[in-house]
């Protein structure tokens, strides 16, 4: 019996148009755009943890924003529990009418329902909390907005529960404080508590530990892992750090210039990478052991500008294994093994 997947991203494209100068207008040049996300598709079942790995310009953060409806796609769709997120974020649309629960709600209430189902954990714990709000108010604000509690005691209880689940116990010790009085790790816990208090089903964690000290990262990642284990929360984890992705995720998608180039079970992708970019990335992740200094495939140059995407396979200019066809043909994401997809001409040819 196939359950409907929690999240379906179908051919997602997100372009950010650039303004045109007078010269461009006169020369009738077409408007250029930043192709932040250029055709991304994947699904997530309930309770999945998927890592979206990529360097800057890969589009991973943009994917997260579109999944939550904080940005609207240029093309393609995101379906959360069967409803189109871009319609949901605006409050009206066919997919919402088709849902028995949402159909009867006002547009504003529908948007609120979306926020209750899917939440975000942000990258910068020093920037994602309002410096003038106390911790209590930060965590309680979602409850106030959604009018989820009926008394002050109930609100305090829920705030306490969220803070203590995230390891900030006793809650009283923390909730009178301002963010500046907490460490980076503690602040990040507050962010997670603020997201949890709405009891979401999907959590998009956008590089949640890259700004934290190494010795604190494990705690936060363990916390996310526990949330899946104990509450069945589905987690989309974006990062540029392959090592942390390897630590607690089920599946991994490697992104390059707005596309997924490899997607498969995490252990598989890490041990048997099939895309040249994945292989290069893995080889340069430093191993914390000088005896294991191995051959590193350091790619030349930098990631191209997402405004000028190379022809054919977008990775071909930097690919150490590129052949003539790679310049002309843009390989789609295709299965190379059970559950393991790659977007590479060479990999599909029995690579």
């Amino acid at each position, binding site marked *: 019996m196939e359950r409907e997947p929690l999240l379906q991203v179908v051919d997602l494209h997100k372009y950010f148009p650039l303004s045109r100068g007078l010269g461009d207008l006169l020369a009738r040049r077409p408007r250029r755009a930043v192709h932040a996300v250029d055709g991304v598709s994947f699904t997530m079942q309930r309770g999945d943890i998927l890592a979206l790995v990529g*360097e*800057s310009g890969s589009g991973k953060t943009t994917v997260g924003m579109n999944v939550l409806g904080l940005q609207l796609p240029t093309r393609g769709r995101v379906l959360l529990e069967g409803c189109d997120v871009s319609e949901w974020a605006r409050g009206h649309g066919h997919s919402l009418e088709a849902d028995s629960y949402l159909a009867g709600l006002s547009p504003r209430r529908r948007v609120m329902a979306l926020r209750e189902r899917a939440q975000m954990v942000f990258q910068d714990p020093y920037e994602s909390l309002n410096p003038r709000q106390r911790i209590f108010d930060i965590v309680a604000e979602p409850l106030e907005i959604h009018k989820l509690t009926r008394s002050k005691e109930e609100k305090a209880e829920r705030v306490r529960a969220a803070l203590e689940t995230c390891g900030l116990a006793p809650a009283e010790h923390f909730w009178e404080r301002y963010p500046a009085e907490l*460490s*980076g*790790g503690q602040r990040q816990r507050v962010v997670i508590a603020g997201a949890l208090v709405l009891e979401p089903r999907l959590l998009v964690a956008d590089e949640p530990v890259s700004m934290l*000290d*190494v*010795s*604190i*990262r*494990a*705690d936060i*990642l*363990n916390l996310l892992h526990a949330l899946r284990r104990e509450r069945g929360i589905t987690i989309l984890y974006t990062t*540029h*750090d*392959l*090592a*942390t992705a*390897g*630590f607690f995720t089920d599946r991994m998608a490697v992104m390059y210039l707005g596309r997924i180039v490899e997607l498969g079970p*995490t*252990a598989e992708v*890490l041990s048997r990478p099939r895309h040249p970019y994945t292989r*290069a*990335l*893995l080889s*340069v*992740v*430093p*191993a*914390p*052991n*000088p*005896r*294991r*200094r191995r051959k*590193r495939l*350091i*790619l030349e140059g*930098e*990631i191209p500008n997402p405004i000028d995407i190379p022809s054919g396979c977008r990775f071909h200019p930097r690919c150490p294994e590129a052949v003539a066809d790679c310049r002309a043909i843009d390989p789609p994401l295709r299965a190379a093994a059970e559950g393991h997809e790659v977007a590479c001409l060479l990999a599909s040819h029995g690579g």
Partner: protein
Amino acid sequence: MALLDVRDLSIDYLADDGTPLHAVENVSFRLEQARSLGIVGESGCGKTTVMMALLRLLPEEGRIVGGQVLLDGRDLLQLSEAEMRHVRWRSMSMVFQGAMNALNPVRTVESQIAEALLLHSVVDSPRAARQRAGELLAMVGIPPQRGRQYPHQYSGGMRQRAVIAMALACNPRVLIADEPTTALDVMIQAQILELLTRLQADLNLSLIVVTHDLGMVAEVCDDVLVMYGGMVAEVGSSDAIFNDPHHPYTQRLLEAFPDIERPGSTLASIPGNPPRLDDLPPGCRFEPRCHCPWREAVCARQRPPLVEIAPGHSLACHFARRLA
């Protein structure tokens, strides 16, 4: 004799009300000619403070209250400001944290490097300065013609290379790189590290890399110094620190670092927070978070001395000999 010999360096910061905060206490290490030292520690451990003190660039709230910094036998802390200015950049230079974002946006990259050259009288004419700037850019992997561009036309990795070129303008003996790869993509990080390694070999440079990234240190550095809460926890060769760590903090730090070749293994973390400078424990600064089974009262009462347990391998722990 070591090229750079730092002995018992201690630095205080004055709080707003004037009380001295002991930010760094008794830090000692040696840097040999043409070797690289990695200084590892988490945020707030004082590693940048120590580097700024070496170049005597602390802010006015900072005071060096003890120790010696011997460069080729000469104590830099005893020099006058004029003499120190002669040392800065010529003998020892630094790539500051976030320097790639601090390039002057309204001047060409070439002119900024040339300025350093002219200021330190390395060359005598603007034309010679431009020429040399071009050479320096080529040395760091930037085509010299691009010297005439502005910083905003460079990518992040290129700006970092330009800043490294600037630091090498006067042929220093020692180059300090403070978090040289933070905010750069993994692939660019690898490129920059490769560049630093190559420069070290080609120029016979002594390199100090300050970072929180253990992987970088394992990849690039010959020796490692682990700092915690303003003090040295452990110092030794890279091999010794990574494969035979003795200090409890070093051990936990290594356990917290994810190893891509062993995915799925448990990642440790260290409960608690680094000590606050206005609330320092009287004894070992790591004691409140130490998991060592034979912790004793002395740990909380007395500062552990830095004890050498093997040639070139020292640690600051009351049980150093027992752990060895």
